[in-house]
């Protein structure tokens, strides 16, 4: 199989686009994390993220998150067109830093929870959810 100069160039450009695209998707999530933490280091552990292993319907995926001593928790879906899901700010009368909700997931991906602790440190938890039918329409 011979390639002309034009075809070779097109192939090269396609390969570059393929490697750059997934990187950009993750970068959006990284940007959101950086905006929340202000660039501070994020430790693992201290956050409980409960998500189903397999979600049949990506339109409603039950998620619950809790982190003892947290003042705020941000939820992210790294593989969605927009990674932000929700940010909880716990007030004075919050019984515990925990909340449950239902979210949309576009496809199989990692759900990330980042907690801001009372002392200003950050902790995170990740959970991979397999999605059978995506929930963002199209």
């Amino acid at each position, binding site marked *: 199989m011979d390639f002309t100069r034009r075809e070779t160039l097109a192939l090269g450009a396609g390969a570059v686009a393929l490697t750059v695209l997934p990187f950009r998707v993750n970068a959006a999530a990284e940007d959101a994390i950086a905006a929340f933490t202000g660039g501070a280091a994020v430790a693992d552990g201290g956050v409980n993220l409960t998500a189903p292993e397999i979600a049949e319907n990506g339109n409603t995926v039950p998620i619950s998150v809790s982190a003892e001593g947290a003042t705020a928790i941000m939820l992210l879906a790294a593989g969605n067109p927009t990674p932000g899901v929700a*940010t909880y700010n716990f007030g004075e009368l*919050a019984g*515990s830093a925990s909340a449950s909700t*239902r979210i*949309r997931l576009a496809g199989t991906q990692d759900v990330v929870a980042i907690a801001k602790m009372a002392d200003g440190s950050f902790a995170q938890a990740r959970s991979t959810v397999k999605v059978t039918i995506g*929930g*963002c*329409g199209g």
Partner: protein
Amino acid sequence: MADGVKPRVKAPKSASAGEVVVLKTLISHNMESGQRKDKSGNPIPRSIINRFTCEFNGTPVIDVTMEPAISTNPYFEFEAKIPEGGNLKFTWYDDDGSVYEETKSIKVG
């Protein structure tokens, strides 16, 4: 999306002082994500509830910033500490500027 929005809240009617109670809220709302397209291929504009707050006698319990990735009919379950008798006030803020409110009173004793 100002019509057909109905908030529902499940909260206990009474609690002992300092008790932590579980609150469940649900509001009927399309939560149009802005990602979908109609039959002719035009994007359907985003229309979601972007913020939910809960206060007890004016003291904040929880304040949630919501993005389009929250499901249709947003459901939230969380816990609140009830130091005295009073009112829980739940507020939802819509993209179109509408505000939906619901109040539940809790007795202590």
